[in-house]
Protein backbone atom coordinates (compact mmCIF):
# COMPACT_ATOMS: atom_id res chain seq x y z
CA UNK A 1 0.00 0.00 0.00
CA UNK A 2 2.69 2.44 0.99
CA UNK A 3 4.38 1.77 -2.33
CA UNK A 4 1.37 3.01 -4.28
CA UNK A 5 1.02 6.22 -2.32
CA UNK A 6 4.75 6.73 -2.46
CA UNK A 7 4.90 6.55 -6.23
CA UNK A 8 2.33 9.29 -6.83
CA UNK A 9 3.99 11.57 -4.34
CA UNK A 10 7.36 11.01 -6.00
CA UNK A 11 5.83 11.77 -9.36
CA UNK A 12 4.34 15.10 -8.37
CA UNK A 13 6.67 16.49 -5.70
CA UNK A 14 8.80 18.36 -8.22
CA UNK A 15 5.69 20.22 -9.31
CA UNK A 16 5.25 21.64 -5.81
CA UNK A 17 8.37 23.62 -4.95
CA UNK A 18 6.79 24.62 -1.64
CA UNK A 19 7.27 21.04 -0.46
CA UNK A 20 10.98 21.82 -0.20
CA UNK A 21 10.21 24.48 2.38
CA UNK A 22 11.30 24.16 6.00
CA UNK A 23 9.16 25.26 8.94
CA UNK A 24 10.89 25.83 12.25
CA UNK A 25 13.89 24.01 10.90
CA UNK A 26 11.96 20.89 9.89
CA UNK A 27 10.88 19.91 6.40
CA UNK A 28 7.26 20.99 5.89
CA UNK A 29 4.56 18.34 6.20
CA UNK A 30 1.45 20.01 4.83
CA UNK A 31 -1.66 18.40 6.30
CA UNK A 32 -4.09 21.26 5.77
CA UNK A 33 -5.27 20.30 2.30
CA UNK A 34 -8.95 20.47 3.22
CA UNK A 35 -8.51 24.19 3.89
CA UNK A 36 -6.59 24.78 0.69
CA UNK A 37 -4.44 22.57 -1.48
CA UNK A 38 -0.93 23.45 -2.64
CA UNK A 39 -0.61 24.85 -6.14
CA UNK A 40 1.56 23.07 -8.71
CA UNK A 41 3.89 24.74 -11.18
CA UNK A 42 1.79 24.10 -14.31
CA UNK A 43 -1.11 26.01 -12.76
CA UNK A 44 1.10 28.96 -11.85
CA UNK A 45 2.70 28.79 -15.28
CA UNK A 46 -0.68 28.98 -17.02
CA UNK A 47 -1.66 32.06 -15.03
CA UNK A 48 1.69 33.74 -15.48
CA UNK A 49 1.52 33.03 -19.18
CA UNK A 50 -1.76 34.87 -19.36
CA UNK A 51 -0.33 37.89 -17.55
CA UNK A 52 2.92 37.91 -19.46
CA UNK A 53 1.68 37.15 -22.97
CA UNK A 54 -2.07 37.64 -23.36
CA UNK A 55 -2.94 40.13 -20.64
CA UNK A 56 -6.27 41.44 -21.91
CA UNK A 57 -9.93 41.44 -21.09
CA UNK A 58 -12.09 38.74 -22.64
CA UNK A 59 -15.09 38.60 -24.97
CA UNK A 60 -15.25 42.18 -25.98
CA UNK A 61 -11.97 42.58 -27.81
CA UNK A 62 -11.09 42.29 -31.45
CA UNK A 63 -7.36 42.66 -30.98
CA UNK A 64 -4.93 39.78 -30.77
CA UNK A 65 -4.27 39.81 -27.03
CA UNK A 66 -7.96 39.85 -26.27
CA UNK A 67 -8.67 37.07 -28.75
CA UNK A 68 -5.96 34.95 -27.15
CA UNK A 69 -7.23 35.70 -23.66
CA UNK A 70 -10.81 34.91 -24.64
CA UNK A 71 -9.75 31.65 -26.19
CA UNK A 72 -7.74 30.61 -23.13
CA UNK A 73 -10.62 31.59 -20.86
CA UNK A 74 -13.25 29.69 -22.78
CA UNK A 75 -10.98 26.68 -23.22
CA UNK A 76 -10.66 26.66 -19.45
CA UNK A 77 -14.42 26.39 -19.24
CA UNK A 78 -14.33 23.45 -21.62
CA UNK A 79 -11.67 21.76 -19.50
CA UNK A 80 -13.79 22.18 -16.38
CA UNK A 81 -16.84 20.90 -18.23
CA UNK A 82 -15.05 17.73 -19.29
CA UNK A 83 -13.44 17.34 -15.89
CA UNK A 84 -16.77 17.19 -14.10
CA UNK A 85 -18.75 15.58 -16.89
CA UNK A 86 -21.22 18.40 -17.40
CA UNK A 87 -23.41 18.08 -20.47
CA UNK A 88 -22.54 21.42 -22.00
CA UNK A 89 -20.32 24.39 -21.38
CA UNK A 90 -23.38 26.52 -20.61
CA UNK A 91 -23.74 24.56 -17.37
CA UNK A 92 -20.40 25.79 -16.05
CA UNK A 93 -20.74 29.13 -14.26
CA UNK A 94 -17.56 30.62 -12.84
CA UNK A 95 -17.97 32.10 -9.36
CA UNK A 96 -15.63 33.42 -6.68
CA UNK A 97 -15.59 30.04 -4.97
CA UNK A 98 -17.74 27.22 -3.62
CA UNK A 99 -19.36 29.55 -1.08
CA UNK A 100 -20.39 31.96 -3.81
CA UNK A 101 -21.66 29.08 -5.92
CA UNK A 102 -23.83 27.70 -3.12
CA UNK A 103 -25.17 31.17 -2.37
CA UNK A 104 -25.92 31.78 -6.03
CA UNK A 105 -28.08 28.69 -6.32
CA UNK A 106 -29.71 29.39 -2.95
CA UNK A 107 -30.58 32.94 -3.94
CA UNK A 108 -31.36 32.54 -7.62
CA UNK A 109 -32.97 29.12 -7.71
CA UNK A 110 -34.37 28.49 -4.24
CA UNK A 111 -35.35 31.88 -2.88
CA UNK A 112 -38.04 32.75 -5.44
CA UNK A 113 -39.40 29.20 -5.28
CA UNK A 114 -39.70 28.84 -1.51
CA UNK A 115 -42.76 29.67 0.56
CA UNK A 116 -43.31 29.73 4.30
CA UNK A 117 -43.16 26.19 5.66
CA UNK A 118 -41.22 24.73 2.74
CA UNK A 119 -38.29 22.56 3.71
CA UNK A 120 -34.65 22.52 2.71
CA UNK A 121 -32.95 19.32 3.70
CA UNK A 122 -29.28 19.45 4.66
CA UNK A 123 -27.26 17.18 6.93
CA UNK A 124 -25.74 17.61 10.35
CA UNK A 125 -22.22 17.69 8.99
CA UNK A 126 -22.51 20.62 6.60
CA UNK A 127 -19.91 23.32 6.19
CA UNK A 128 -21.09 26.85 7.10
CA UNK A 129 -21.16 27.64 3.38
CA UNK A 130 -24.04 25.20 3.05
CA UNK A 131 -25.78 26.37 6.21
CA UNK A 132 -25.46 30.11 6.58
CA UNK A 133 -26.38 30.59 2.92
CA UNK A 134 -29.66 28.87 3.83
CA UNK A 135 -30.09 30.75 7.10
CA UNK A 136 -30.21 33.93 5.04
CA UNK A 137 -32.81 32.47 2.69
CA UNK A 138 -34.98 30.87 5.37
CA UNK A 139 -35.08 34.16 7.23
CA UNK A 140 -36.27 35.90 4.06
CA UNK A 141 -38.81 33.28 3.02
CA UNK A 142 -40.03 31.51 6.14
CA UNK A 143 -38.85 28.18 4.77
CA UNK A 144 -37.22 25.76 7.24
CA UNK A 145 -34.10 23.68 7.46
CA UNK A 146 -34.35 19.99 8.23
CA UNK A 147 -31.30 17.87 9.02
CA UNK A 148 -30.21 14.39 8.03
CA UNK A 149 -28.89 13.15 11.39
CA UNK A 150 -25.58 11.43 11.89
CA UNK A 151 -25.11 7.95 13.27
CA UNK A 152 -22.55 7.46 16.02
CA UNK A 153 -19.80 6.68 13.53
CA UNK A 154 -20.33 9.99 11.73
CA UNK A 155 -22.15 8.56 8.71
CA UNK A 156 -25.60 9.66 7.58
CA UNK A 157 -28.73 7.98 8.88
CA UNK A 158 -29.66 7.33 5.29
CA UNK A 159 -32.31 4.91 6.53
CA UNK A 160 -34.28 7.93 7.74
CA UNK A 161 -34.30 9.56 4.32
CA UNK A 162 -37.80 8.48 3.22
CA UNK A 163 -39.20 10.04 6.36
CA UNK A 164 -37.08 13.19 6.07
CA UNK A 165 -38.24 13.70 2.52
CA UNK A 166 -41.88 13.81 3.50
CA UNK A 167 -43.72 17.09 3.26
CA UNK A 168 -42.84 20.17 1.23
CA UNK A 169 -39.13 19.44 0.69
CA UNK A 170 -38.06 21.67 -2.20
CA UNK A 171 -34.32 21.38 -2.05
CA UNK A 172 -31.76 18.95 -0.69
CA UNK A 173 -28.29 20.43 -0.33
CA UNK A 174 -25.59 18.20 1.06
CA UNK A 175 -21.83 17.75 1.19
CA UNK A 176 -20.32 15.04 -0.94
CA UNK A 177 -17.35 14.62 1.39
CA UNK A 178 -17.34 16.11 4.89
CA UNK A 179 -14.49 18.53 5.53
CA UNK A 180 -14.23 17.22 9.12
CA UNK A 181 -15.28 13.59 9.19
CA UNK A 182 -13.97 12.85 5.73
CA UNK A 183 -16.67 10.33 4.91
CA UNK A 184 -17.76 9.96 1.30
CA UNK A 185 -21.49 10.46 1.64
CA UNK A 186 -24.03 8.38 -0.35
CA UNK A 187 -25.18 11.30 -2.47
CA UNK A 188 -26.35 9.15 -5.36
CA UNK A 189 -28.97 7.58 -3.17
CA UNK A 190 -30.01 10.96 -1.82
CA UNK A 191 -30.39 12.31 -5.34
CA UNK A 192 -32.54 9.39 -6.45
CA UNK A 193 -34.86 9.58 -3.46
CA UNK A 194 -35.08 13.39 -3.53
CA UNK A 195 -35.95 13.40 -7.22
CA UNK A 196 -38.61 10.82 -6.58
CA UNK A 197 -40.43 13.32 -4.37
CA UNK A 198 -39.76 16.23 -6.74
CA UNK A 199 -37.02 17.98 -4.75
CA UNK A 200 -33.93 19.42 -6.42
CA UNK A 201 -30.50 18.44 -5.18
CA UNK A 202 -27.36 20.53 -4.78
CA UNK A 203 -24.08 18.81 -3.99
CA UNK A 204 -21.43 20.73 -2.08
CA UNK A 205 -18.48 19.11 -3.80
CA UNK A 206 -15.79 21.37 -2.36
CA UNK A 207 -14.01 18.35 -0.88
CA UNK A 208 -14.73 15.87 -3.68
CA UNK A 209 -14.17 17.48 -7.07
CA UNK A 210 -10.49 17.04 -7.85
CA UNK A 211 -10.23 14.33 -5.22
CA UNK A 212 -12.20 11.61 -6.96
CA UNK A 213 -13.75 11.10 -10.38
CA UNK A 214 -16.82 13.27 -10.91
CA UNK A 215 -19.51 12.73 -13.53
CA UNK A 216 -22.17 15.38 -13.15
CA UNK A 217 -24.48 13.79 -15.69
CA UNK A 218 -24.25 10.30 -14.25
CA UNK A 219 -24.68 11.66 -10.73
CA UNK A 220 -27.81 13.45 -11.94
CA UNK A 221 -27.50 16.23 -9.35
CA UNK A 222 -29.22 19.50 -10.19
CA UNK A 223 -26.42 21.73 -8.92
CA UNK A 224 -22.81 21.13 -7.99
CA UNK A 225 -20.56 23.64 -6.24
CA UNK A 226 -16.81 23.62 -5.75
CA UNK A 227 -13.71 25.79 -5.37
CA UNK A 228 -10.52 25.96 -7.41
CA UNK A 229 -8.18 26.37 -4.47
CA UNK A 230 -9.00 22.97 -2.95
CA UNK A 231 -8.09 21.07 -6.11
CA UNK A 232 -4.67 22.45 -7.03
CA UNK A 233 -6.19 25.54 -8.61
CA UNK A 234 -5.87 29.19 -7.62
CA UNK A 235 -7.84 31.20 -5.08
CA UNK A 236 -10.57 33.53 -6.33
CA UNK A 237 -12.46 31.02 -8.43
CA UNK A 238 -15.09 28.34 -8.08
CA UNK A 239 -17.86 26.83 -10.12
CA UNK A 240 -21.59 26.44 -9.94
CA UNK A 241 -22.49 23.68 -12.32
CA UNK A 242 -26.20 23.34 -12.95
CA UNK A 243 -28.61 21.60 -15.24
CA UNK A 244 -29.09 24.03 -18.11
CA UNK A 245 -32.88 24.04 -17.88
CA UNK A 246 -32.70 25.11 -14.23
CA UNK A 247 -30.07 27.77 -14.82
CA UNK A 248 -32.08 29.02 -17.76
CA UNK A 249 -35.07 29.55 -15.56
CA UNK A 250 -33.18 31.57 -12.94
CA UNK A 251 -32.84 35.33 -12.72
CA UNK A 252 -29.31 36.72 -12.39
CA UNK A 253 -28.23 38.01 -8.97
CA UNK A 254 -25.67 40.52 -10.22
CA UNK A 255 -25.98 42.88 -13.16
CA UNK A 256 -23.22 44.36 -15.30
CA UNK A 257 -21.17 43.85 -18.41
CA UNK A 258 -21.12 40.56 -20.32
CA UNK A 259 -24.34 39.24 -18.79
CA UNK A 260 -26.66 41.27 -20.99
CA UNK A 261 -27.94 41.28 -24.55
CA UNK A 262 -29.40 44.73 -24.56
CA UNK A 263 -29.26 47.51 -22.00
CA UNK A 264 -31.79 50.30 -22.19
CA UNK A 265 -32.20 53.22 -19.85
CA UNK A 266 -34.73 51.52 -17.64
CA UNK A 267 -34.20 47.82 -18.17
CA UNK A 268 -32.05 45.16 -19.72
CA UNK A 269 -32.31 41.71 -21.25
CA UNK A 270 -30.08 38.85 -20.21
CA UNK A 271 -27.40 37.05 -22.14
CA UNK A 272 -27.37 33.29 -22.70
CA UNK A 273 -25.90 30.78 -20.26
CA UNK A 274 -23.46 30.74 -18.64
CA UNK A 275 -22.81 34.46 -19.15
CA UNK A 276 -26.10 35.51 -17.56
CA UNK A 277 -24.53 34.70 -14.19
CA UNK A 278 -21.09 36.15 -14.87
CA UNK A 279 -21.51 39.89 -14.55
CA UNK A 280 -18.41 41.99 -15.11
CA UNK A 281 -14.88 41.05 -15.90
CA UNK A 282 -14.57 37.42 -14.84
CA UNK A 283 -11.66 35.97 -12.87
CA UNK A 284 -9.72 35.42 -16.09
CA UNK A 285 -6.33 34.28 -14.84
CA UNK A 286 -8.07 32.22 -12.18
CA UNK A 287 -10.27 30.40 -14.69
CA UNK A 288 -7.21 29.66 -16.79
CA UNK A 289 -5.48 28.38 -13.65
CA UNK A 290 -8.46 26.20 -12.79
CA UNK A 291 -8.43 24.77 -16.30
CA UNK A 292 -4.75 23.96 -15.85
CA UNK A 293 -5.52 22.29 -12.52
CA UNK A 294 -8.10 20.09 -14.24
CA UNK A 295 -5.48 19.09 -16.78
CA UNK A 296 -2.90 18.48 -14.10
CA UNK A 297 -5.19 16.22 -12.09
CA UNK A 298 -6.57 14.61 -15.22
CA UNK A 299 -3.01 13.80 -16.24
CA UNK A 300 -2.50 11.91 -12.99
CA UNK A 301 -5.90 10.25 -13.30
CA UNK A 302 -8.67 10.85 -10.80
CA UNK A 303 -8.85 7.19 -9.85
CA UNK A 304 -5.24 7.36 -8.81
CA UNK A 305 -5.73 10.65 -6.99
CA UNK A 306 -8.56 9.08 -5.05
CA UNK A 307 -6.76 5.82 -4.31
CA UNK A 308 -3.69 7.66 -3.09
CA UNK A 309 -5.62 10.12 -0.96
CA UNK A 310 -7.98 7.56 0.48
CA UNK A 311 -5.17 5.16 1.37
CA UNK A 312 -3.26 7.84 3.23
CA UNK A 313 -6.39 9.15 4.92
CA UNK A 314 -7.46 5.76 6.14
CA UNK A 315 -3.92 4.87 7.19
CA UNK A 316 -3.77 8.06 9.23
CA UNK A 317 -7.24 7.57 10.73
CA UNK A 318 -6.45 3.98 11.71
CA UNK A 319 -3.02 4.82 13.09
CA UNK A 320 -4.11 7.85 15.11
CA UNK A 321 -7.15 6.10 16.48
CA UNK A 322 -4.81 3.33 17.60
CA UNK A 323 -2.68 5.72 19.65
CA UNK A 324 -3.20 5.90 23.38
CA UNK A 325 -5.14 9.00 24.29
CA UNK A 326 -6.00 9.90 20.68
CA UNK A 327 -9.49 9.59 19.20
CA UNK A 328 -10.52 10.01 15.60
CA UNK A 329 -13.94 11.46 14.75
CA UNK A 330 -15.92 9.84 11.99
CA UNK A 331 -15.53 6.64 10.01
CA UNK A 332 -12.17 4.86 9.72
CA UNK A 333 -12.96 3.56 6.26
CA UNK A 334 -14.59 5.11 3.20
CA UNK A 335 -12.73 8.27 4.14
CA UNK A 336 -11.17 10.81 1.79
CA UNK A 337 -8.91 13.62 2.97
CA UNK A 338 -9.73 14.98 6.41
CA UNK A 339 -8.98 13.24 9.70
CA UNK A 340 -10.34 15.16 12.69
CA UNK A 341 -9.09 13.96 16.05
CA UNK A 342 -8.75 14.76 19.74
CA UNK A 343 -5.79 14.29 22.06
CA UNK A 344 -6.91 13.66 25.64
CA UNK A 345 -5.88 16.46 27.96
CA UNK A 346 -4.62 18.75 25.23
CA UNK A 347 -6.70 21.43 23.55
CA UNK A 348 -6.69 21.19 19.73
CA UNK A 349 -5.06 24.62 19.42
CA UNK A 350 -2.17 23.46 21.50
CA UNK A 351 -1.95 20.35 19.37
CA UNK A 352 -1.76 22.49 16.24
CA UNK A 353 0.83 24.87 17.65
CA UNK A 354 3.07 22.10 18.92
CA UNK A 355 2.79 20.21 15.63
CA UNK A 356 3.71 23.42 13.81
CA UNK A 357 6.85 23.43 15.94
CA UNK A 358 7.60 20.05 14.38
CA UNK A 359 7.05 21.42 10.87
CA UNK A 360 3.61 19.80 10.56
CA UNK A 361 0.72 21.97 9.38
CA UNK A 362 -2.66 20.88 10.75
CA UNK A 363 -5.71 22.95 11.54
CA UNK A 364 -7.57 23.31 14.83
CA UNK A 365 -10.98 24.80 15.44
CA UNK A 366 -14.50 24.14 14.26
CA UNK A 367 -13.46 23.99 10.61
CA UNK A 368 -16.50 26.06 9.64
CA UNK A 369 -18.79 23.37 10.99
CA UNK A 370 -19.98 24.63 14.36
CA UNK A 371 -23.24 22.69 14.42
CA UNK A 372 -21.39 19.46 13.66
CA UNK A 373 -19.02 20.21 16.53
CA UNK A 374 -21.99 20.76 18.83
CA UNK A 375 -23.12 17.32 17.79
CA UNK A 376 -19.65 15.87 18.38
CA UNK A 377 -19.63 17.52 21.80
CA UNK A 378 -16.39 19.33 21.06
CA UNK A 379 -16.05 23.06 20.52
CA UNK A 380 -12.94 22.39 18.48
CA UNK A 381 -11.04 19.50 16.94
CA UNK A 382 -7.62 19.11 15.39
CA UNK A 383 -7.65 18.10 11.74
CA UNK A 384 -5.01 16.60 9.49
CA UNK A 385 -6.09 16.43 5.85
CA UNK A 386 -4.38 14.54 3.07
CA UNK A 387 -4.00 14.89 -0.68
CA UNK A 388 -1.65 14.03 -3.52
CA UNK A 389 1.17 16.10 -2.02
CA UNK A 390 1.40 13.72 0.93
CA UNK A 391 3.31 10.50 1.38
CA UNK A 392 3.07 7.69 3.92
CA UNK A 393 6.04 9.14 5.78
CA UNK A 394 3.85 12.12 6.64
CA UNK A 395 1.71 9.84 8.79
CA UNK A 396 4.85 8.75 10.66
CA UNK A 397 5.84 12.38 11.16
CA UNK A 398 2.35 13.15 12.45
CA UNK A 399 2.46 10.28 14.91
CA UNK A 400 5.89 11.34 16.16
CA UNK A 401 4.61 14.91 16.44
CA UNK A 402 1.64 13.81 18.50
CA UNK A 403 3.97 11.96 20.83
CA UNK A 404 5.83 15.20 21.38
CA UNK A 405 2.51 16.91 22.11
CA UNK A 406 1.63 14.29 24.67
CA UNK A 407 5.04 14.56 26.28
CA UNK A 408 4.92 18.33 26.60
CA UNK A 409 1.51 18.11 28.22
CA UNK A 410 2.54 15.16 30.33
CA UNK A 411 -0.36 13.07 29.15
CA UNK A 412 1.57 9.94 28.26
Amino acid sequence: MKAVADSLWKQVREDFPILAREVHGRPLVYLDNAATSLTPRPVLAAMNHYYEHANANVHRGLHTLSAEASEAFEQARDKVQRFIGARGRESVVFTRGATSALNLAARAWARPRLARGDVILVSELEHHANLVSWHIITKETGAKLRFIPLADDGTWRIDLLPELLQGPVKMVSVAHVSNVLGGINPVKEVIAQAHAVGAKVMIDAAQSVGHMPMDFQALDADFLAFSGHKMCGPTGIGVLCGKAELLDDMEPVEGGGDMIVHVGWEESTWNLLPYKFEAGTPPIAEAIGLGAACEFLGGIGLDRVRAHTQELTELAARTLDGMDGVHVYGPLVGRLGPVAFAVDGVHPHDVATLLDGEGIAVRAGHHCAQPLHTKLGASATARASFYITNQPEDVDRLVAGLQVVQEVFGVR
Partner: protein
Amino acid sequence: MFADLYQQIILEHYRHPQNVGVVDGSLQVRNEHPSCGDKVLLSVCVDGDTVREVRFLGEGCSISQASLSMMTEAVKGLSVDEVRGLYEKFREMLHGHEPDEDALGDMVSLQGVSRFPARVPCATLGWETLFRALALESHEDNPGQPCE
Protein backbone atom coordinates in the same frame (compact mmCIF):
# COMPACT_ATOMS: atom_id res chain seq x y z
CA MET B 1 9.88 22.10 19.38
CA PHE B 2 8.18 24.85 21.30
CA ALA B 3 9.16 23.97 24.85
CA ASP B 4 9.61 27.65 25.61
CA LEU B 5 6.02 28.40 24.66
CA TYR B 6 4.55 25.75 26.90
CA GLN B 7 6.36 26.49 30.13
CA GLN B 8 5.53 24.35 33.13
CA ILE B 9 3.88 27.26 34.87
CA ILE B 10 1.42 27.65 31.98
CA LEU B 11 0.58 23.99 32.06
CA GLU B 12 0.06 24.15 35.81
CA HIS B 13 -2.40 27.02 35.48
CA TYR B 14 -4.07 25.11 32.67
CA ARG B 15 -4.47 21.95 34.73
CA HIS B 16 -5.29 23.75 37.96
CA PRO B 17 -6.83 27.08 37.07
CA GLN B 18 -7.30 29.62 39.86
CA ASN B 19 -10.49 31.53 40.59
CA VAL B 20 -12.82 29.28 38.71
CA GLY B 21 -16.49 29.93 39.27
CA VAL B 22 -19.20 32.55 39.28
CA VAL B 23 -19.64 35.19 41.96
CA ASP B 24 -23.27 35.51 42.85
CA GLY B 25 -24.75 38.89 42.06
CA SER B 26 -21.64 40.06 40.25
CA LEU B 27 -21.36 41.69 36.87
CA GLN B 28 -21.12 38.84 34.37
CA VAL B 29 -19.82 39.06 30.84
CA ARG B 30 -19.59 36.34 28.22
CA ASN B 31 -17.05 36.38 25.43
CA GLU B 32 -16.03 34.03 22.67
CA HIS B 33 -13.48 33.93 19.91
CA PRO B 34 -15.64 32.65 17.13
CA SER B 35 -12.83 31.53 14.88
CA CYS B 36 -11.33 29.21 17.50
CA GLY B 37 -14.17 28.57 19.93
CA ASP B 38 -12.42 29.79 23.09
CA LYS B 39 -15.13 30.87 25.52
CA VAL B 40 -15.30 32.60 28.85
CA LEU B 41 -17.87 33.77 31.40
CA LEU B 42 -16.20 36.34 33.60
CA SER B 43 -17.74 37.59 36.84
CA VAL B 44 -16.37 40.76 38.28
CA CYS B 45 -17.02 42.72 41.46
CA VAL B 46 -15.85 46.29 41.56
CA ASP B 47 -16.00 48.25 44.77
CA GLY B 48 -15.66 51.95 44.11
CA ASP B 49 -12.53 51.98 41.99
CA THR B 50 -11.13 48.66 43.11
CA VAL B 51 -11.48 45.26 41.52
CA ARG B 52 -12.58 43.13 44.46
CA GLU B 53 -13.22 39.76 42.94
CA VAL B 54 -12.85 38.11 39.53
CA ARG B 55 -13.79 34.55 38.70
CA PHE B 56 -14.24 32.73 35.44
CA LEU B 57 -15.71 29.73 33.74
CA GLY B 58 -13.74 29.01 30.63
CA GLU B 59 -13.23 26.59 27.81
CA GLY B 60 -10.32 26.68 25.46
CA CYS B 61 -6.66 26.12 24.91
CA SER B 62 -3.91 26.11 27.51
CA ILE B 63 -2.88 29.64 26.60
CA SER B 64 -6.32 31.18 26.98
CA GLN B 65 -7.15 29.29 30.16
CA ALA B 66 -3.78 29.79 31.82
CA SER B 67 -3.85 33.46 30.91
CA LEU B 68 -7.32 33.79 32.45
CA SER B 69 -6.17 32.05 35.58
CA MET B 70 -3.11 34.29 35.90
CA MET B 71 -5.09 37.42 35.17
CA THR B 72 -7.69 36.72 37.86
CA GLU B 73 -4.88 36.32 40.37
CA ALA B 74 -3.07 39.44 39.26
CA VAL B 75 -5.91 41.96 39.14
CA LYS B 76 -7.59 41.26 42.44
CA GLY B 77 -7.28 44.31 44.65
CA LEU B 78 -5.98 46.60 41.92
CA SER B 79 -7.59 49.85 40.92
CA VAL B 80 -9.05 50.10 37.45
CA ASP B 81 -6.15 52.28 36.39
CA GLU B 82 -3.65 49.79 37.73
CA VAL B 83 -5.40 47.05 35.78
CA ARG B 84 -5.01 49.15 32.65
CA GLY B 85 -1.36 49.71 33.34
CA LEU B 86 -0.76 46.02 33.90
CA TYR B 87 -2.51 45.07 30.68
CA GLU B 88 -0.43 47.62 28.82
CA LYS B 89 2.72 45.84 30.02
CA PHE B 90 1.29 42.45 29.20
CA ARG B 91 0.39 43.56 25.70
CA GLU B 92 3.80 45.05 25.11
CA MET B 93 5.34 41.73 26.02
CA LEU B 94 3.00 39.92 23.63
CA HIS B 95 4.11 42.30 20.92
CA GLY B 96 7.75 41.38 21.42
CA HIS B 97 9.00 43.86 24.01
CA GLU B 98 11.12 42.77 26.96
CA PRO B 99 8.74 41.99 29.81
CA ASP B 100 8.62 43.90 33.07
CA GLU B 101 9.19 40.81 35.19
CA ASP B 102 8.41 42.43 38.50
CA ALA B 103 5.07 43.75 37.38
CA LEU B 104 3.98 40.72 35.38
CA GLY B 105 4.91 37.87 37.70
CA ASP B 106 3.63 34.49 36.45
CA MET B 107 2.41 36.16 33.31
CA VAL B 108 6.00 36.40 32.09
CA SER B 109 5.65 32.72 31.28
CA LEU B 110 3.42 33.76 28.37
CA GLN B 111 6.25 35.67 26.70
CA GLY B 112 6.67 32.91 24.12
CA VAL B 113 3.23 33.71 22.71
CA SER B 114 4.73 36.81 21.12
CA ARG B 115 6.29 34.55 18.48
CA PHE B 116 2.88 33.15 17.54
CA PRO B 117 0.69 35.99 16.29
CA ALA B 118 -2.17 33.56 15.78
CA ARG B 119 -2.13 32.75 19.50
CA VAL B 120 -1.97 36.29 20.84
CA PRO B 121 -5.79 36.53 20.91
CA CYS B 122 -5.84 33.44 23.13
CA ALA B 123 -3.68 35.21 25.67
CA THR B 124 -5.79 38.37 25.61
CA LEU B 125 -9.29 36.86 25.63
CA GLY B 126 -9.63 37.21 29.40
CA TRP B 127 -8.33 40.77 29.42
CA GLU B 128 -10.63 41.85 26.62
CA THR B 129 -13.53 40.45 28.54
CA LEU B 130 -12.43 42.14 31.74
CA PHE B 131 -12.35 45.52 30.05
CA ARG B 132 -15.80 44.97 28.62
CA ALA B 133 -16.98 44.27 32.14
CA LEU B 134 -15.29 47.35 33.52
CA ALA B 135 -16.80 49.49 30.77
CA LEU B 136 -20.26 48.19 31.66
CA GLU B 137 -19.54 48.74 35.35
CA SER B 138 -18.71 52.39 34.78
CA HIS B 139 -21.70 52.86 32.50
CA GLU B 140 -24.59 55.00 33.74
CA ASP B 141 -27.20 52.30 33.74
CA ASN B 142 -24.91 49.59 34.99
CA PRO B 143 -26.72 46.30 34.64
CA GLY B 144 -24.55 44.70 37.34
CA GLN B 145 -25.25 44.54 41.03
CA PRO B 146 -23.04 45.37 43.99
CA CYS B 147 -21.40 42.17 45.22
CA GLU B 148 -22.70 40.48 48.27
